[in-house]
């Protein structure tokens, strides 16, 4: 019996999967595999009142905030990795338009891991004595029942939606991811509804032949979207390098609300499909970002 296809368009996946007011984890790969195409679709559909969850987010959170989609952020870091501040984030926090729950990378990873494990919290030794406790009500200082040591309890986060960008998936939602994972596995397992965006849609057999590379069980995936170049400008192992120039130009162009509006009009609102996006990017730029050196792993034997 073949499982029914979960393949859908990006528009449908976001329209059906992301309700106004929902809590959504994005950018779980930290610097890599950030689902920019899906984030831009959220902006185009004018979703409102979202709570964003993610470790460092690079510039995607800043864009969603600038587009007015966001009510709150639960994150360790929001900005532009190679330049520093995210200006929409700064403006929104400084004017009190959005609420922030401050995490570290470890507390955020543990919050999602607790969600994935189905427990209310997990203990850690990080952040003791820091002011993260003052700007994050979901961190509490506790005493270990076994050793009497002071520990930090991190409350579970169970997002409504996770959007994960991967190299390849089959129609039933079995997905291969390689590279460093960040908190991708925690994000997928913790969330109620999972949307997988993939550079390639492949036959089920391609995935099944390498089960160690499957990022989460297919039955936990609700929608599969073919999204080539969907993580650009973040790097996608096996597909394309990081587009540093876009991060630099975004830093320049998002310094004022008007500048950001013009950026959004060009890079988000004027785009409908991945073909539109690639045309905007240009063949020459895409070729520059493509892998120049391939380095294939050895095949492994799963036989019996």
């Amino acid at each position, binding site marked *: 019996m073949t499982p029914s296809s979960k393949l859908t368009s990006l528009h449908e996946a976001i329209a059906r999967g992301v309700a106004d007011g929902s809590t959504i984890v994005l950018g779980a790969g930290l610097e890599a595999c950030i689902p920019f195409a899906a984030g831009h679709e959220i902006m185009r559909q004018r979703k409102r009142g979202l709570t964003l969850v993610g470790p460092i987010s690079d510039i995607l959170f800043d864009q969603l905030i600038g587009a007015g989609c966001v009510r709150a952020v639960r994150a360790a870091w929001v*900005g532009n*990795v190679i330049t520093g*501040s995210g200006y929409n984030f700064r403006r929104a*926090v400084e004017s009190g338009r959005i609420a922030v729950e401050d995490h*570290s990378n470890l507390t955020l990873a543990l919050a999602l891991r607790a969600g994935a494990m189905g427990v209310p919290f997990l203990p850690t030794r990080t*952040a003791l004595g820091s002011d*993260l406790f003052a700007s994050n009500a979901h961190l509490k200082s506790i005493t270990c029942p076994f050793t009497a040591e002071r520990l930090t309890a991190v409350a579970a986060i169970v997002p409504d939606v996770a959007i994960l960008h991967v190299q390849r998936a089959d129609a039933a939602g079995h997905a291969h991811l390689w*590279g*460093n*994972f960040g908190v991708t596995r925690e994000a997928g397992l913790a969330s109620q509804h999972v949307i997988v965006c993939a550079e390639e849609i492949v036959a089920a057999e391609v995935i099944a032949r390498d089960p160690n590379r499957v990022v989460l069980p297919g039955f936990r995936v609700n929608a599969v979207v073919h999204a080539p170049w969907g993580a650009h400008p973040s790097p996608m192992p096996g597909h394309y390098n990081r587009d540093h120039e876009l991060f630099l130009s975004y830093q320049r162009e998002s310094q004022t609300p008007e500048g950001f509006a013009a950026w959004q009009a060009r890079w988000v609102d004027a785009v409908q499909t991945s073909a539109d996006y690639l045309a905007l990017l240009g063949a020459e730029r895409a070729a520059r970002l493509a892998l120049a050196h391939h380095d294939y792993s050895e095949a492994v034997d799963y036989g019996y």
Partner: protein
Amino acid sequence: MATEAQTRSYTPAELMVAAAAREIGDGEVVFVGMRLPLLGFQLAKRTHAPGAIGIYELGIIRSTPAPEPILTMGDLPNLCRAQWLADTLDVMSLLQRGDIHVSFIGGAQVDRFGNLNTSYIGGMAPGRIETRLPGSGGACDLASLAGRHIIIMPHEKRRFVPRVDYITSPGYGDGAGWRQRAGLTGGGPAAVITTLGVLRFDPDTGEMMLASVHPGVTVEQILAATGWPLRVAPQVTQTPEPTAEALAILRHFDPQGFWTGS
């Protein structure tokens, strides 16, 4: 001063990276941060610490320099033939269980006990926030849990304050014994490498002390750029200049001077 600086064959950032690299011992496990430490680790690997192992919060471990220059730790050359590609929680767990000797973090605001703020300037209460900074990332974890951590930041009076507005990454709190009382298992800050000098901490009091001044910088300049009466170590030295070999390596890894340009 300006003329003296102009005759030098290196930039202030190159001097800082070289100083950062010297903090890494051969064979140590290093949690490598963003920006200048990225280069400091590559430099240490190619010179005095070939046995150092680099760990990156994205979930990367590598004991070899990346095959090509990288601008950030997530660049694909940093993944190619890495020793381990894993989850962020895996590398953070290594940190928590005490496997990391040294780590590097940047700061926006620091105080006399090495507490670091990269979150809120002014304060975190609504109406008090003058500047919202990006936040902790992994910095709070490194400051909490690494064997020791090194802070790298510009030396300005507005950044070197008696008490930070918000503790993102704990240093020695309000002095000796504070980290133990808080329950922190990491050793705390070992050095602050700035644009003007290198500062270390008095083991008895946890207070920052001036240890070395960069070439062309005076002790008085540093005191004037520090927002509290800074203690000066009995034997203040001059920070060593980067060697020609170090500069050649740095320029290989940062060919456009993105991080180390003037």
